[in-house]
């Protein structure tokens, strides 16, 4: 069980990696900071009840807070149902292509984006993602599959073992 007196230490030492996760979810450093602080404030109230390693618990709060946040359009983020026409590929190649992938990631619905970040950045298993999002493993699989389809990512080209079977 985490000791509340350790909360400040946790904030001081674990905020940086958590902030990166927040950024990948929000795509804006200021919003990421806001999301992180909101999650930490919620975590503080449950601090005495969480296990020895509070980080998974805080990550769960982050993802669920993100998924339930009111998104204000004037933050400039406007996900859409379909990816816009990509137009002709730029001869400069990979850099533009990565920008395109990054932009497409930003257009994913919030929960799909959360699944992508948890699976491919945090490297959580499907079962772990399901636990964080409080959904079934099947839902994680279907959401991963839909997200990759929207991102035009071909899972069959992956060489990473974590992906195998992850998008069935």
């Amino acid at each position: 069980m985490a000791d509340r007196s350790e909360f400040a230490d946790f904030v001081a030492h674990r905020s940086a990696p958590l902030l990166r996760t927040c950024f990948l979810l929000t795509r804006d450093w200021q919003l990421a900071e806001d999301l992180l602080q909101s999650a930490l404030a919620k975590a503080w109230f449950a601090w005495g009840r969480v296990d020895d390693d509070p980080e998974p618990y805080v990550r769960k709060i982050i993802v669920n807070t993100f998924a339930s946040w009111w998104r204000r359009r004037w933050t400039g983020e406007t996900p859409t149902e379909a990816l816009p026409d990509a137009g002709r590929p730029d001869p400069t190649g990979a850099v533009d292509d990565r920008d395109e992938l990054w932009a497409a990631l930003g257009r994913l619905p919030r929960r799909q984006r959360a699944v992508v970040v948890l699976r491919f950045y945090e490297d959580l298993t499907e079962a772990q993602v399901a636990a964080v999002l409080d959904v079934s493993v099947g839902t994680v699989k279907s959401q991963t599959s839909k997200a990759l389809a929207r991102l035009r990512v071909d899972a069959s080209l992956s060489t990473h073992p974590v992906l195998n079977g992850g998008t069935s």
Partner: protein
Amino acid sequence: MSRTDHTTDDLRSLLVERSTTVPPPRPGRADEVSGRVRGIRRRRAAATGLSVVLAVIAVVAGAGLLSSGHRQRAVPAYERKVDGLPVYQAGYRLVGHVSFHTDDKRSASLDFTPSTYGMALASTCSVDSKHGVSVEVNGHPVLSGSCGGGQSLSSPSFHDDAGFWAAEQVRLGQRMTVVARVGSSPLGRSPHDTVFLGPMRDVTVSVGLYQRVPVSAYPFPPRPHRLQPLGDHGRFDGGRVLHTFDSRRIGATGSAQWTTRMPASGLRYAGFYVAPGAVTISVNGTVVDRQTSWNYEGSGSGGPSLDPGFLQQQGVTVAIGDRVTISVRATRFQDPAWELVVRAGR
């Protein structure tokens, strides 16, 4: 490389690459979290207190009805709600709202002719839910989010009302249409989130349109006998405080200024309020922020990072090492019930 050539390894490396440009460490984060914790506590305490008060009122009112028939306690304006939406909040008054039950409808609309750009939107659901509700104005997505978490008010930034609403094709004197829908995606066209969470049943969704009220017409709650204490922030190690504008020295209303050199890390500030009032923040004579408080519950509000980049956007040219003067002007406070803490860092 074509669009279909991405692999999951591309995706992994992209996520790592984009998240590595993390901003410099924020020394005051713990302090700001502490402020949020305090705010949540106060809201909970206020809610608990309100529940007790309402229970007592219910008992008294019930007894009164039994004894004298028809007498009822009028609900004061600052407590009044319509379909879960407060009639007054944060300086705004409800001027139109739309509600629908999810067993009957998936959306509903409201027509309104605005006379001012000082408007805001709020939403609430009868049941906390992870399901999404989206709001569009004149066909433009404006809000999208979860039903959960109680009532939520969203307004444009303090000096950009007209710009925001104009971008949504809102014109004064012309009818605007607000549509509330089940589903988180813009315009509600994607049923994705709803499918993800299953059907949304037996929930009443309410969306309210609010209009700013002159302060003289705003129904503030009565002042409690004792105000919440000021200055208990900094509970956690929050980094170095450079300056504090403290109403206990400056006065309930009044102005003060402080000059320093712009540190490489930039400057930031947060205001703390335990009574209604407003504080305007200026940098080198240009207003950059206005923070307001509308009740006695106690609240904290972080301002924008005062780094050269942000200030340039506000029309203030300041380089690292230049002299920078931060001015505050407090108005409307009846008590020395505010302070604004300036720290180094972003």
